Every structure is written in C-alpha cells, then in structure tokens.
C-alpha cells in the first residue's frame, strides 16, 4: 500500500531524480564518469560501493551541494544546477537529507531543529509549527524529547531526531547518507523499519547511500553499484537479482564476500 501522495503523483511522467552522463571530479581527478540512472517515484533506491568509491560524493551531487563536472542532474525533469535561485530553493524545499552523523544543530533543541525548516519555508504560525514538530518527533519515537539538546541523547536517537528534521516539510525525496553507520544492529534495523514505513505511508521516494549489506537487502527496491576500479557504475537492479546473477566480479564480491552469515 502506498500513500495518497504517491497515488496521485504517479500520474507524472518525470522520474523523481534523473542523472544524465554525470562525471564527478575532485579537483583535476575524475572520481566517476558516465553515470546515468533515474530514481522512480516511491522507490527505495540504494547507492552502494566500497569505501572511497564516490558514493558520498554522488550524494553531494544529488542534494545540490556539489555541481557536476559534466552532465546533468534533474529533479522532476528540472535541471537543478541550470535553474535560477528561486527554482533551486523550491527544489530544495521538496527534498530532505539525513546526514551521516545526523548533523543536528547542537545549539538548538530537538524541537528547534525540526522547527527551523518549517519557519524558513512555510508561513505557519508558532502554534501550528509546534504541532507539526510534535508530530514529527512522535513519528520517529521521540515524543517528549522536544526540549532536549542533541548532545544529551544517544547516537541512535540523534539520528532519528535528524530524520524528524529531514521529514519536517513532508519531502517528496529523502536522501540518507550511511543511515546505519555508528548504530548498533538493533538501532540500525529499527531505523531501516522507520525508513520503509515512512516511504510506504507517505509515498516518499528514498535514496540511500550505504555499504551495509544487511540494510541493502532489507530496504532496497533497486541498487546502483559504483565500481571503484572502472570508475563508473557497473550494476543497477534489485539486490537479490544482482547477487544471484552478478554482472561483474566486483559486484559479486561486494554482495557476497562480507555478507556471509549476515543475510
């Protein structure tokens, strides 16, 4: 069952995110080239690859922090980096990002953290914002923690609070950078559940960067493999299919070597 948002937006043709012939460079060094893929609405899309393969860099491109060296990145059919400032702001409003360590603003309470995007982007009054904040924190299981500061709660809670901030504006696309890093297996799997639940209920499109195999097989509809040797993407498909019928040795090694005993 997908939410009403997805049901009605399914009529649109443009994919949520589309990448065309993207080349990523770090100064003069090419990290990845010839990346072309699209993320369909409502799916959970995983970007996987070994350490240093440029997963996080790709995420930085997708969330508009790093302009592409070559190629285009389209949201809703709109080229983000070619758009004017107003359009960019509109696009950014429709996406949410959960950073690797949460990146909660440490000088603000959890409620203030979640409220900030609402204050910036909506015309809601203080009482309405308070209601939305309470809802979002309740959805991630943090009801009652409104007045806490980020350094007073555990790592898992901090990540969930960051998720509450990321979904504050009911984004159409949610980006996750290594959601399970730094979490114990139980917290990590609880976060995975939450990701799945939110994507199914709100119909949110989800893009996850991770190398956590358990998580990949659990949540991904489709996964993209970045090959550090070939400096490009070498596989795109459902993780189970990729494991059973790996298109390359690197994919096979990635999906099986460390997965023994885990899946």
């Amino acid at each position, binding site marked *: 069952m997908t939410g*009403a948002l997805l049901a*009605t937006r399914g009529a649109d043709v443009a994919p949520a995110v589309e990448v065309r012939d993207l080349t990523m460079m770090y100064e003069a060094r090419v990290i990845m080239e010839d990346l072309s893929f699209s993320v369909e609405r409502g799916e959970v899309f995983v970007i996987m690859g070994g350490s240093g393969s440029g997963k996080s860099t790709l995420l930085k491109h997708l969330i508009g922090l790093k302009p592409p060296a070559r190629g285009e990145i389209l949201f809703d059919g709109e080229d983000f980096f070619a758009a004017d400032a107003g359009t960019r702001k509109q696009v950014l409003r429709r996406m949410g990002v959960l950073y690797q360590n949460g990146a909660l603003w440490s*000088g603000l309470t959890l409620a203030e953290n979640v409220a900030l995007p609402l204050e910036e982007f909506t015309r809601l009054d203080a009482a*309405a914002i308070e209601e939305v904040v309470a809802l979002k924190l309740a959805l991630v299981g943090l009801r009652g*923690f409104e007045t806490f*500061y980020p*350094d007073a709660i555990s790592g898992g809670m901090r990540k969930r609070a960051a998720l509450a901030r990321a979904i504050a504006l009911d984004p159409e696309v949610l980006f996750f950078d290594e959601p399970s890093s730094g979490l114990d297996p139980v917290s990590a799997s609880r976060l995975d559940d939450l990701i799945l639940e939110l994507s199914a*209920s709100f119909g949110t499109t989800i893009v996850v960067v991770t190398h956590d195999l358990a998580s990949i097989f659990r949540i991904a509809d489709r996964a993209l493999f970045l090959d550090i040797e070939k400096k490009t993407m070498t596989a795109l498909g459902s993780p189970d299919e990729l494991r059973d019928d790996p298109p390359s040795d690197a994919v096979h090694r990635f999906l099986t070597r460390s997965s023994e005993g885990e899946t």
Partner: protein
Amino acid sequence: MITGSGAAAVAPATAAKGATAGRASVAMCQQDDTVVAVLAGVWELEDAAPRFEQLIAARSTAGATSSQRVRAVGFDTTELGEWDSSLLIFLLQGFDYCEAHGMEFDTAGLPDSLTRLLALARAVPERAVDDAEPKISTLAKLGEGVLSVGKQALAAVTFTGEVTQGFGRLLLRRGRMRWRDFWVVVQRNSSGALPIVTLIALLLGVIIAFLGVVVLRRFGAGYYVSYLVGYGMLREMGALMTGIIIAGRTGAAFAAELGSMKITEEIDAYSTLGVSPIDHLVLPRVLGLFLMMPLLTIYANAVGIAGGMIVAVTLLDLTPTQFMGGMLSVVTFSDGLLGVFKGAIFGVIIGLAGCMKGLQTGSDAGAVGRSATSAVVMGITLIIVANAVIDWLAVLMQI
C-alpha cells in the same frame, strides 16, 4: 460543508463530490451516536488546516437529535485528495479528543497508510523522558558561581603543575616532545606575527612620544621625551602590547586547535595510547611561545623606539643622534632585560591559558568558540596581573 478555515457549515455528502482538487475540508455528520468525518480535498501543510474540536462542536445532526450523546467517531475518505502531515495532525487531534471524551476512535474508514502512521505517532517512546533538571534558585546559582571560580583556579594550578612535570620529563630526556609542533609555533609567531606587531609597536611608540611632547614641553623639558619613550617601551609597553596581541592571535588559536581535537576525540586517542597530551601538544606550544615572546618583545621595543624618535625629530627639532644619546644616557641594559623577562613569562602564561582552555572544551559546536574567547580573556587578565607583580618586585629589587 466545512471549509479549511474552520468555519462550520452543513453539507450533504454529495456536495463533496469533485472536491478532491479543492482545499482541505471536513464535513461532520452525526448519525445516531456516531459522527462520520468526511475528509475531502487536498491537505497541505501550508494551508490553514481545519481543527477537530471546532468541527465536532459544529457537526450537523441529520438523523439524530443534537442532544444525543456521541459514542464514536468514524471517517470517510472517498473524496480525499493528496495529503501530507496536516491530515495526520488533524487525525491526532481527533484521537486526543476522543480519548478525552470517552469516545471510540474508529479508523476503519481510513486508508492503511494513515492508520499505520497514526500507530507510529501514538507509539510509546522506547525510552521514557528523564525528568527535567530541577530548578535552581538564584542563591544556589551564586554559590555555584563562586565555587566554580575556586575550581577553575585549582584546575589552572593543577594544569600548570602537569606542564611543569612534563617539562621536567623533557629535561631529564624521559618525555618526548613533538618538535615539529614546536617549530610550527615558532614560525607562526615569527614571520606570521611581525606585521601586526610592527604596526602596533610603532603606533605605541608614537603615542608615548606625543604624550611626552605635550606634557614635557610645558615644563620646557621636551628633550626628555627620549627618556619617556625608552623607559616606557623597554620596561612596560613593548612586552605588554606584544603579549596582548599574541594572546588574541596565538592563545585563541591554541584553544581552538586543541578544542577541535578534543571534540573529535583526538585528545582521547593520545591518552589511550598512553601518550601524554601534555608532552605532545601543550609543551611544544608553551615552549614555542616561551622562545618567541622575548624575541618579539625585543623587536617591538626597537620598532616602538623608532616610532617615538620619528615624533621627537619631527616635532622637537631633535636629531636622531640626540634622541638616542639622551635615551641611552639613562636607560640601562637591565631595563631592556626586564621587558624581555616579562615577554618570556607572558609567553608561558598565554601558552598555558590557551592550551588549558582548549583541553577543557565541551562537546557542542559553540564550545570551541567559548574556549577561544575564555583563553583570550584569561590570557590578557593574567598578563596584566603578572605585569603588576613583576613591576612591584622590580621596584623592591631596585631594578
């Protein structure tokens, strides 16, 4: 029909047809003891959402008498368009209302996704909220403030002791210092600090000379401006101003550097390796300033005297030779030595204050900034206190 603004109106169910493209609206109809909320339209956070309490109070009562007690609330979502969190908030209001009034909250008419989100939002947090901190009275705060001054002083003494021990280890060749850090400190406080020291010292010399010209000329003693500049720069102002500049520049940098390392657990990494962060991080910084501050003081003295000479030569028809000759006839080597000695002491103070505040840094993002600030405040305060003490001792010892 009840519109998004919360105004209540009665509407037959058919009127809601085709409303899926319109704004969020709710029609509440009571039949027997059940109120059915017909949700329609597009629910967007930006629009003012209907409020449950208002709507249920203004419900239409077709098929029931208005006095009949409501036992349950149900929902009809056949006309519902797109929705976001605003609908969820509305439903939660309904849930709370029903709970408070002993009504049944019937989710059978809601789509699966909404029911699941409601369950998620109503779930009990896995960890209960700890009780908030107890309130502290003003008197208690005052007491804590006073006690914390004592604690700070003790911490400063302890820290100085630890650094002294580290220095002892270094002298006995039992400790190891990172000489690279030492040379970095030396480099940053040589060529790096020269421009600002030059500017300040030059202007300081000029200011002292102006003061002398204005005051001494009244008594026909303008010639003695050189005495004032010489004594003033060498004994007091050269070391003091250099100290203040370096406290703001380097002391703050030490605190920020070590503070960031504290936050990223780099300091802990030293400690768990059994390597003393004092030996590795603090000693090179303190010793670097101990070496450089006297040298900078000598330089500042020279530049300041030059500044004073420019003023004297310009305003008093003195030649540079007369100025220097006059100054050197009274100013002795020990005056210069006093300033250099002060510089060395100030260097140690700045280094210790910066490193101590850095190592005491808390864990939030503002902590590094606060450490840097308090390192500068502490550095400058202690420099001025030390300056007064040294001056007093110098008078007693007739230097």
